[in-house]
């Protein structure tokens, strides 16, 4: 049931986000959503990148590995994926804002 409810809600949130100034959006990720996102990062990103982000089928994503990479392109990789590789676009499940929040988390370092 919950699966069918989420989609319209997400659309609503997306629509609403157009009317919020960009500088406000950075703080927009709620506590509950943050917990969900961290869980998604560890478990679902972790299936390819490792629970400890040390790599697997996908490359390692520790702060050292990501150092020096432009943040915009990291966010874009999450949102749009990498065609020709196993990295899918996550835009059906994540907003750009949430992707940015995840990249920030990776840049700080994350542990299960």
């Amino acid at each position, binding site marked *: 049931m919950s*699966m069918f409810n989420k989609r319209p809600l997400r659309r609503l949130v997306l629509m609403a986000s157009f009317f919020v100034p960009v500088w406000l959006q950075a703080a927009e990720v709620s506590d509950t959503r943050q917990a969900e996102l961290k*869980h*998604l990062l*560890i*478990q*679902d990103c*972790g*299936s*390819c990148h*490792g*629970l*400890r982000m*040390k*790599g*697997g*089928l996908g490359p390692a994503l520790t702060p050292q590995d990501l150092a020096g990479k432009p943040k915009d392109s990291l966010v874009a990789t999450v949102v749009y*994926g990498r065609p*020709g590789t*196993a990295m*899918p*676009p*996550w835009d*059906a*499940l994540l907003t750009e804002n949430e992707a940015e929040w995840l990249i920030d988390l990776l840049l700080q370092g994350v542990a*299960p």
Partner: protein
Amino acid sequence: MKKIFLTPLLALSLTACSLSGVQESELRGTGDLGVIIERADGNVLIVEHSNNQILARVEGLGDLSHASVVFSRDARYAYVFGRDGGLTKIDLLKQRIDKRIIQGGNSIGGAISEDGRLIAVGNYEPGGVKVFTADTLELVADIPATTLADGTKNSRVVGMTDAPGQKFMVSLFDTGEIWIIDFSDKTTNEPQITKFFDIGKQPYDSMLTPEGRYYMAGLFGEDGLAMLDLWHPEKGVKRVLGGYGKGEQPMPVYKMPHLEGWTVADDRVFVPAIGRKEVLVIDNKSWEQAGRIEMIGQPVFVMARPDARQIWVNFAVPDNQYVQVIDSETAEVIKTIEPGPGVLHMEFSPRGEQIWISVRDRNEVQIWDTATLEHLYTLEADSPSGIFFTNRAHRIGL
């Protein structure tokens, strides 16, 4: 005369028992045992499916983000292949680690040889295969995979299985190869390697049909599967379902499917479709597509009950709270169940009357009756993923 002879023997065996800490009352077989991977904390549960219980927790196995298990021929030892390159041999009877080594930087899975003497591991980093003695985990052979064109590293190795004739089979993800690694010459530790090139783009996993004849690699980079007939390797690798999905836009793949556990049921093979909410049905005579079954999500494991009458399927995120059951004869979904968020793996009891389902985000392993399709019992486990029963010890390709 007999009595005199028996007494010291009895005394000796009593000493042996007390030394090992195992009491005589605990003398038992291993045929109804298994292990469950506790993914987050690097632990393994030893379980028993006769009484649906957890016997022990073994700790300290490192990073088990992606772990797989094979069993020794006597079904006493479980070999756990961990993401961090750890290879751990667990004694199911003494309920402890017998030996543990770090054999590589990043590994994906392994296999045990038909004679039970060799353990082979497929590694992502450094890309290649390492082979060890099963009893002491000493290195027998180190086989690097093909170096990538830019010379920076070797191809990642996936789809490791054993095959009849003291062989191991692997696929090379980055360079699109299938290798037969043959250890049948017992006079040397140097295997004979047969390489098949250009088998397709990005083989992501593979499996051996249960009788050990066909090795099939699923392709991520293009539609279809690569198939090698091990009765006739001279005929080379054939493409199966090459035109599948032509002209359709695949969905994003949030989790790589697994090919382990698929089967030939009623002359048809059931496999997960990549990037589609479908299970594919292949005719195993012509190897042509015989149908597709619409599912609730993108399949990850498509596993047949041992009698092949049902096919159980779990799914990638965001549909990983469901499991669907297919009738193998009608190729229709007969039931959709919702064990809970994060269904990661399933394992049938040896004869298939029960299935154990790991439900990661509920910290549960659920035991379901496959005849009534009802939930029977629940075991607690921390972030459970893979479930492996010892009957795998005696099956080709597992």
